[in-house]
């Protein structure tokens, strides 16, 4: 679906405020009499709390209150299970242990909150943290996933028999039967380690209780304002209408800001009501490393059964998933891994089993990619190993196994994170792969360039992978579109926005429907006082789910406009057109009326409104997809490795991508660029290093490396292919995580290829110069 505005690289409506320092972020909220909160967090990964003495902290001048779990009395309760386990998976085991607001009995990870100080300034609050005396009884921590499941392992949750949080088995076809028929079976252990989301803006909350109006206002760095509003209301015993959550400009989300009812989000509003004063809490960078959720650690034992000519008959993947100390986000991440374990390939038999493990580490919830990069890493690495084993070209083995275009909708016969059967709605994978190969010059590189460079002693390698991205899952989003008497249009929706350009792409959708300039459409997101139905921005669903809700609401307004204009202009609706903010008779453009005038007529101050007519040029509508839309792509990259140091340089990076209808290519490419940079981080720079005591050794931006300007390739070459999704009127699929998903697998393949003469096999991500060196040393 293209239009005058949809599909165009429109400059973003939101940018002027961002450029001049005028955009409001949570830390910019200031109120008279505002207090400041600081949290005391556990220094131990696993320790019983014998006692907490806060008396000295309370006595410090400027300290208004100090609270521990005990002070919360009945308000202390574990947070909600945000995502329950699917009920339609047979034999599923799931032990819900949701995040607690403050430690009562024992600390279960470094950074677990133990007390909160509220003071006249942040600096006093921080100083008072030093006054608190905690008597810890250190316990043996559980850090390693496999160790955690040993019978004599210490328990993260004493009331459970083991550290098993969940166990899920799903099967498509019959792997064992397929294996029996296979010519070749390949077995490997593949590891993915932890990384951080590391949004540039740390988390933050400001809460303000107005006793006279009995209203609580909360500014929150959240990706999901409406669920947070509901959670806060429930916890504090308020009506949902008494709580207004505002997610203003958010400095990047990437997953953890979808987590709701985190300790700080609960405690700051609670304390604000208790003390009758506005309170601000802004996370510092170290807290962001030890107190904000993380992702990715899994251990896969995987088997692939193939015929001699490279047809994959089946895959068996048994993996452990580290959920950290609690599992409030249910099984979203490991289910996503299962859903992506077959990648873009038509593989008839799939046995997939995972165990989720509690450990004394920070809680795991989705981070951009959310389990998908792990699934793609495993299947793509296995494809490479199979190609080697069979002496086949890596592109050829992929081509032989891609899902053919006539097989859509393609059923995977397993339950996915949306609790329904995973079905790839549409796609055309071969042209995507071929496009990437053509862009990188695959044949020429393999046949000419690489041999020539190798002869010069250079270690250059190519990576070529395909991927899918399940996106745009339900349940639903909603939007309200109104034409104001000025003729300008306002759009409100419940999703929050963290830089994805919703202010612009939603405006483009509305501009096309109503024939107005995109700059005359004002979009409001993330304010529960403006719209209060919806879930949030996650799982690459904003443009798909909220975008289609916006379109439906705009279509409703369009219908109202036409109906009213038809009467006013005494012309049948079919003969009217909406152009330049006017409704006009198609053949007689001078017979027209502006949308503003119509808006006034639709909302008269006197007279009668016809029965059955709702006032105003306004409509509210919702969209919920039947199931998610699956995007696809292929990445090709060329790297060079310095054999002296094992430093890797990305020489070229190509991505061919199909996310259905592209609303705004500039925004889509921006999403891909950002995802790729995180993928590069997940490939070579970003690994959270926990020691045997569960201490995080690199809890700063000095020690935990994010990719910098000098780590990016010179260009990211992008090709868009468009197979519109049949599941939504716009035909869009999500793109928010696309870049992050394929990069580690492409990077590993390229590095392995570059180091071909060392015979090294890469079965893990992220790598580092040091880790590559170790892998080479192990080969001898």
């Amino acid at each position, binding site marked *: 679906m293209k239009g005058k505005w949809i599909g165009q690289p429109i400059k973003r409506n939101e940018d002027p405020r961002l450029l001049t320092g005028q955009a409001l972020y949570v830390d910019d909220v200031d109120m008279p009499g505002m207090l400041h909160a600081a949290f005391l967090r556990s220094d131990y990964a696993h320790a019983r709390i014998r006692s907490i003495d806060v008396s000295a902290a309370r006595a410090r001048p400027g300290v208004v209150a100090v609270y521990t779990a005990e002070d919360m009395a009945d308000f202390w309760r574990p947070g909600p299970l945000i995502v329950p386990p699917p009920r339609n998976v047979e034999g599923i085991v799931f032990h819900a242990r949701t995040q607690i607001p403050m430690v009562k009995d024992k600390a279960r990870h470094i950074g677990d909150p133990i007390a909160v100080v509220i003071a006249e300034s*942040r600096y006093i609050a*921080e100083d008072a943290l030093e006054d608190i005396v905690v008597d810890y009884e250190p316990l043996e921590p559980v850090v390693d996933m496999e160790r955690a499941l040993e019978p004599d392992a210490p328990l993260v949750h004493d009331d459970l028999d083991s550290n098993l949080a969940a166990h899920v088995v799903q099967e498509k076809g019959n792997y064992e039967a397929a294996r029996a028929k296979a010519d070749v079976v390949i077995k490997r252990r593949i590891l993915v380690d932890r990384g951080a989301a590391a949004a540039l803006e740390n988390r933050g909350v400001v809460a303000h209780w107005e006793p006279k109006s009995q209203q609580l206002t909360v500014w929150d760095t959240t990706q999901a304002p409406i669920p947070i509003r509901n959670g806060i209301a429930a916890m504090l015993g308020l009506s949902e209408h008494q709580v207004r959550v505002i997610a203003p400009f958010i400095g990047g989300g990437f997953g953890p800001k979808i987590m709701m009812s985190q300790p700080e989000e609960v405690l700051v509003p609670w304390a604000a009501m208790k003390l009758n004063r506005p309170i601000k809490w802004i996370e510092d*960078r170290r807290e962001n490393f030890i107190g904000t959720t993380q992702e990715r650690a899994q251990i896969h034992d995987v088997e692939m059964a193939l015929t001699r000519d490279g047809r994959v008959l089946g895959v068996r993947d048994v993996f452990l998933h580290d959920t950290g100390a609690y599992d409030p986000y249910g099984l979203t991440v490991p289910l996503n891994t299962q859903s992506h374990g077959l990648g873009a390939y038509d593989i008839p038999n799939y046995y997939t089993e995972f165990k989720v493990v509690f450990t004394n580490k920070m809680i795991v919830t989705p981070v951009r990619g959310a389990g998908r990069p792990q699934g793609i890493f495993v299947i793509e690495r296995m494809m490479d190993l199979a190609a080697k084993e069979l002496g086949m070209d890596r592109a050829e083995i992929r081509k032989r196994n891609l899902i053919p275009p006539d097989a859509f909708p393609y059923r995977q016969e397993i339950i996915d994170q949306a609790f329904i059967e995973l079905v790839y709605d549409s796609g055309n994978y071969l042209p995507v792969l071929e496009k990437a190969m053509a862009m990188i010059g695959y044949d020429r590189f393999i046949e000419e360039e690489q041999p020539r460079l190798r002869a010069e002693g250079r270690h250059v390698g190519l990576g070529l992978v395909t991927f899918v991205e399940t996106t745009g899952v339900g349940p639903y989003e909603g939007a309200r579109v109104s034409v104001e008497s000025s003729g300008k249009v306002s759009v409100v929706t419940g999703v929050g926005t963290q830089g994805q350009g919703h202010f612009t792409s939603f405006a483009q959708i509305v501009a096309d429907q109503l024939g107005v300039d995109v700059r005359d459409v004002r979009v409001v997101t993330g304010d529960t006082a403006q719209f209060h139905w919806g879930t949030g921005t996650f799982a690459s669903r904003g443009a798909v789910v909220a975008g289609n809700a916006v379109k439906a609401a705009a279509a409703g307004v369009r219908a109202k406009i036409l109906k009213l204009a038809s009467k006013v202009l005494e012309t049948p609706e079919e003969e009217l057109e909406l152009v330049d903010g006017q409704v006009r008779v198609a053949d007689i453009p001078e017979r027209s009326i502006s949308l503003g005038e119509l808006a006034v007529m639709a909302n008269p101050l006197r007279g009668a409104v016809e029965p059955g007519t709702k006032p105003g040029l306004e409509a509210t509508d919702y969209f919920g997809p039947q199931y998610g839309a699956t995007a696809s792509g292929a990445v090709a990259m060329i790297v060079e490795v310095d054999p002296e*140091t094992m430093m890797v340089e990305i020489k070229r990076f190509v991505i061919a991508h199909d996310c259905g209808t592209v609303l705004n290519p500039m925004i889509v490419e921006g999403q891909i660029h950002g995802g790729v940079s995180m993928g590069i981080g997940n490939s070579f720079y970003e690994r959270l*290093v926990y020691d045997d005591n569960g201490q995080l050794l690199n809890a700063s931006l000095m020690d935990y*490396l994010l990719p910098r300007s*000098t780590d990016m390739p010179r260009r990211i070459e992008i090709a868009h292919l468009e197979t519109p999704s049949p599941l939504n009127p716009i035909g869009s699929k999500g793109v928010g995580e696309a870049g992050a998903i394929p990069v580690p697998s492409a990077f590993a393949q390229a590095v392995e290829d570059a180091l071909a003469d060392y015979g090294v096999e890469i079965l893990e991500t992220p790598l580092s110069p*040091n880790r590559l060196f170790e892998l080479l040393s192990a080969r001898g």
Partner: protein
Amino acid sequence: MHTPTPGLPEFDYVKLTSLAAASQFLAEHAGEARPFMGGTDVFVRMRDGFWKEKYIVDVKGLDGMDEITFDPATGLTIGASVNMNRVIASPEVNQHYPVLAEAAHTVASYQLRTRATIVGNVCNASPAGDTIGACLVLNGTLRVHGVDGVREEPLSTFFVGPGQTVLKPGDIATAVSFPLPPEGYAARYIKLGRNAIGDLAIVGVAALGYPDSSAPSGYRFRLALASVAPVPLVPTQAEAILAEKPITEATIAEAARAAMDACTPIDDVRGSARYRKLMVRNLTRKAVTEVWERIKG
């Protein structure tokens, strides 16, 4: 246990009008006062709770510390307040001591280098200090203003332990100076981090070589290594090999191995001790080879 916080702890900022007064103040408040220049290390360590001084004494710009001067007869002096970006941009540095600019350029970021200084880097005595190796191979000397007056401290004997130097309470380093470099010399600083630019050094290798007919090989090399020992390390055995034996690929490799053997690195998030040792070998070989290519007749 300390709690790292984004706010700086309480202290009093002290700015005095002369070096003498500053030295006096620092000596009188030994143990509770610390001089600072750009603060790039001081503020981080105070935030992390490692340093809890009561007084922070700003010694920037006192008594002509803000100059770079080059004298063709005696050499280069860089005042303690001169930031690294000025060193990188200095024509005198680039003409006569380019390795100083090369090393400074590997430090952090441009905006941090607006505040970071060579003298500060030296006085913090971090084993990972990127400019220290260059200062060592250039035979740098620190000018120190103490309560008893001004003295010179050669860098070769300056470092005592990680973060520890021979400086005493009341001492303020006012400049680092370098003699004229040897005729026909060349030098390099090679830094290895986990990324292209911006990381702290996994290892850093500074190498300087020059023709010297008094050496059996006809050349002398000075080497200094970062991040591989508790103090910036000079691998004297490696230097001796390069002075004694005819410079060949094999001699350079032998010296590189000697440099590796001199190291006592640790494991940390940047790299293992083993990786560090081998990188010292590889990068010493590379640095010496490159210098050799430029100085051989």
